[in-house]
């Protein structure tokens, strides 16, 4: 099996992907473009691969969800291009790559950080089918001018309750990057999901 190529221009491609991720977390819920020409092995999506290659290295264990973990090619691709260890235990992961977002494990399975070091928590990177700025859940918080709304899926049925519980842990909690083909948005732990009555 031939190894698929990584970034064509490792320096500037990684910088562009990082900037997209930085803007996604600093303007939560704002859907933005994430252009990439990567063609990683299935079922890893180009967006997940781009974020993993831009952010992960030997210091950041990656956890893969079941469909990704079944592919030896995906692990080999990430090991070679990012140099990141693949971990089987979610609580030891710095980043989690998830293609079957509807089956995303409970947030409590991942490192949450501690009150002294809330930065010790994991970042989830989800691949979704659709991500649009029309309707969906409403959010408020740092980085959001008033409120923001976006629709994404497929996601677990209790998604809203999970996000509320995650925000309640602030300053601990997970940060989430949501991707769909060609686009992404961010949901840092600081974003608060609005109740239907507030929205």
């Amino acid at each position: 099996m031939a190894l698929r190529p990584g970034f064509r221009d490792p320096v500037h491609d990684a910088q562009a992907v990082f900037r997209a991720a930085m803007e996604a977390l600093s303007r939560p819920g704002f859907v933005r473009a994430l252009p990439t020409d990567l063609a990683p092995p299935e079922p890893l999506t180009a967006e997940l691969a781009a974020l993993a290659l831009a952010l992960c290295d030997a210091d950041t264990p990656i956890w893969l969800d079941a469909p990704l973990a079944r592919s030896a090619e995906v692990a080999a691709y990430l090991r070679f291009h990012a140099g990141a260890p693949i971990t089987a235990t979610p609580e030891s992961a710095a980043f989690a790559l998830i293609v079957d977002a509807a089956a995303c494990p409970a947030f409590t399975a991942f490192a949450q950080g501690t009150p002294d070091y809330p930065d010790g928590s994991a970042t989830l990177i989800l691949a979704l089918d659709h991500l649009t700025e029309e309707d969906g859940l409403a959010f408020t918080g740092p980085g959001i001018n008033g409120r923001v709304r976006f629709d994404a899926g497929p996601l677990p049925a209790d998604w809203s309750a999970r996000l509320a519980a995650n925000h309640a842990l602030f300053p601990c909690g997970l940060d989430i990057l949501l991707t769909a083909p060609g686009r992404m948005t961010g949901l840092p732990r600081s974003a608060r999901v609005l109740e239907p009555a507030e929205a």
Partner: protein
Amino acid sequence: MSAPLPEQGYNFAYLDEGTKRMIRRAILKAIAIPGYQVPFASREMPMPYGWGTGGVQVTAAVLGRSDVLKVIDQGADDTTNAVSIRRFFGRTAGVATTTRTTEATVIQTRHRIPETPLREGQILVYQVPIPEPLRFLEPRETETRQLHALAEYGLIHVKLYEDIARHGHIATTYAYPVEVAGRYVMDPSPTPKFDNPKMDDCPALQLFGAGREKRIYAVPPYTRVRSLDFEDHPFRVQRFDRPCALCGAEGVYLDEVVLDDRGGRMFVCSDTDHCEGRRAEGFTGEQAA
């Protein structure tokens, strides 16, 4: 100044890619936890501590080819620190540089926020000497970390209260502590407190880098930044009783310039770009040449 030649043999923006990734991850955490100081593995930079090694590392990690960089030192684009950092990135990254606040996408600053309001998409990078607002009250890192974890900020209110007891008003004029998004108390770096209101609900992303102390922290756009105060001693910024002597601007931060040894002095805009822009538009002050 002629355009500096790009330096050969260095990675884009000087730092290696592994270092950039580490700093980038710290920046993402800092944005997700506004006001919290994220530890990072600060590198030796080709400049001494105190000259902006933290800010330079943050700038190097975010900078891209299409960015336009502005560097200011106490509001001025033309002082040694600003000129040398601008040249550093001109040579190691080959990025375009500017002195115009409106043209810049990344602005590295030492202790001022430009007078021209910042816009969405801009990034303001602060150089920070001592990131810990509680450090002079509690020297032990283990203790200050716990105070932040517990959101126990009584000490800093006592410090402000002691100002009032001694001077009759809050006498802290720079590095004035702020509360970010209702949670962490943060040192806004030694900016004059005059600039504190500009941090509140700012459309630009604000990143803070402390090289020697190895901390990165952030204020996302549109985030509440409240200067600490008391009901009976509300936060106030200083006022200047005269306009800028060169451009006549009022409501801006002024520097005092001593003119001779007989008490002669003038007050001019600290923000040189703002002052030059106004003069180009035809505004003049009483001492404009």
